[in-house]
């Protein structure tokens, strides 16, 4: 154990060859990773850019060459001017913003209530992670059956306990009417269900990271505030929350990116029907439904570009401003 500091101190003296050796070994050990990531991630991404400018259909896949086809902007024209593109973009934005906010909000509440040890806490914590770790196909299927108009438990309980007259096809209804105090409100049923599902499935991710941060917070600040007479809510607002700002901001970025790009959950729950078509599902439709590989590639690039612009704006204005505030 004693030798630990020695090699580091000796390194400059032993000269270049050792460092070169180390560099070579490092790259050699990392090369399998690099090859896989380059071949299956980086090059395909670059290739998507090329495909987006080519007229490529599913049925000519085996014949056409990689660089053979002439380059054209028609794919972008097709996807940007198609009916439903703007709606899909709008739904994607609503889905990402509200979904992110809901899942982080729930995660924060969940982390706060299990912050202090109690009997059975491990079990409670594990159960709260279940929605996130369970297979997406299984959980979407269960939700589908639960919300089924005839077989589902939600409609059955709604009819028995709340006296619903009509069964609600939660996942197929674009707009439902909600009667509140004599007012009839039009609500986007399927989209709301999708958002609730999103909150349910992804709050565990925020919960996990907020809880880890909460448990690492020094207790003395909170204690000092208590001695000074701050009530629990005040301590949360002025002591705990500011210290969680960093992890919440990080979660907001991550969840936003992932929700924005999300395909599985939406496709499995509604197949993008009933006013829930997000851009990723639309890309899939271009690819498999119409067999238009070029248009699918173009639309997926548009999706990535919109995300990049939004992230840039976020870092530019939001992060920039908080940093200014800190220096002031």
């Amino acid at each position: 154990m004693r030798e630990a500091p020695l090699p580091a101190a000796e390194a400059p003296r032993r000269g270049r060859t050792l460092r070169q050796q180390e560099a070579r070994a490092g790259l050699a050990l990392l090369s399998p990773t690099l090859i896989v990531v380059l071949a299956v991630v980086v090059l395909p991404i670059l290739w998507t850019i090329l495909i987006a400018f080519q007229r490529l259909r599913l049925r000519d896949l085996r014949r056409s060459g990689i660089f053979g086809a002439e380059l054209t902007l028609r794919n972008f024209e097709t996807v940007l001017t198609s009916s439903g593109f703007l709606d899909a973009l709008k739904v994607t934005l609503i889905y990402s913003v509200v979904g992110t906010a809901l899942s982080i909000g729930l995660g924060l509440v969940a982390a706060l209530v299990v912050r202090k040890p109690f009997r059975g806490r491990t079990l409670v914590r594990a159960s709260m992670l279940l929605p996130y770790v369970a297979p997406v196909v299984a959980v979407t299927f269960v939700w589908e059956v639960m919300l089924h108009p005839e077989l589902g438990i939600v409609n059955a309980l709604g009819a028995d306990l709340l006296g619903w007259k009509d069964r609600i096809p939660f996942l197929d209804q674009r707009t439902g009417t909600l009667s509140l105090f004599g007012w009839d409100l039009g609500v986007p049923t399927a989209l709301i269900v999708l958002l609730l599902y999103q909150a349910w499935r992804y709050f565990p991710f925020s919960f996990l990271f907020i809880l880890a941060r909460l448990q690492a917070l020094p207790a003395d600040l909170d204690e000092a505030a208590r001695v000074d007479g701050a009530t629990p809510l005040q301590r949360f607002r002025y002591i705990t929350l500011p210290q969680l700002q960093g992890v919440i901001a990080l979660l907001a970025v991550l969840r936003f990116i992932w929700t924005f790009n999300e395909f599985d959950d939406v496709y499995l729950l509604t197949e993008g029907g009933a006013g829930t078509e997000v851009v990723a599902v639309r890309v899939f439709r271009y690819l498999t439904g119409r067999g238009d590989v070029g248009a699918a590639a173009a639309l997926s690039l548009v999706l990535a570009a919109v995300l990049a612009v939004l992230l840039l704006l976020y870092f530019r204005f939001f992060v920039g401003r908080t940093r200014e505030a800190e220096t002031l």
Partner: protein
Amino acid sequence: MSRIELDTEVAGRTPGAAAAPRGRAERRLSREIVETRILGVLKWVTIALFVVATIFPFYYMLVLSVRSIEDLALDPGALWPPRGVSLDAFGEVLGSTDDGGQGFLTFLRNSGIIAVGTVVATLLVSILGAYAISRLEFFGRRQVHFLFLAVYLFPAILLAIPLFVLFTRIGLRGSLFGLTIVYISQTVPVTIHMLRNYFVTVPESLEEAAALDGATRLQTIRKVALPLAKPAIMATSLFVFMIAWNEFLFALLFLVEDRGRWTVSLGLSQLAGSIEVAKTVLMAGSVILTVPIIVVFFATERLLVEGLTSGAEKG
């Protein structure tokens, strides 16, 4: 005289001045008590709501898998199997298509092959990579993370398009092997992250001792670093297993044409849309799909949570 007056004035004021803060303190104290009591109750209500909301769908899945479809149609609101438990659905979902079943046994085999293959290959690749990043100084060491960002920043569907084209061309589409390669690329970055976090906590001096004794770099990794990192490797393997087992989009794009190659996830999603297969039978399929994940998860929950969130405590 005036002095005394002043003194009495001061003295006279003192009790009042002391009373005011005490009154505020009492009010604050009562607010403290009220808030603590209300929050104390709310806390347990919230915990109960969360537990019910997270566990109920899984309980419902289990209950439906042991009910018949006729029974469900008659009484969709029942919270437990009202007419007894029947395991027929599991027989039907697992049986081969020749016997009138749904062939989930084949799907299980496919999912198993892909998941285990992904775990083995990903670990081989990422142990070497994580070791290099945590131990060795070389050009590009710090830039590697940007490369990994690409995996998670771009939508999976964007990546799926060229891979779909490529694998169709070279004849890998429709093979379990092709899908495994995609899964390796999707899991390597996060496993390297998890393993690296662990390797940096293992004292380097042990490895240096081995190196002084004449062990080669690979021997050092195998004989010294790996045994020490066993728990981390265990957690990482199971994490990769879960990702590969649960994956849907790439399986859908690559394997959908040949029913004999379907994974459990793909099989369930394809059959869920058909009217011929009863929902209760597919619930049995969901249970079969979910149980391995829940077993793996409960076995490694603590390791997994630590591996994923290490570094997050610093904020």
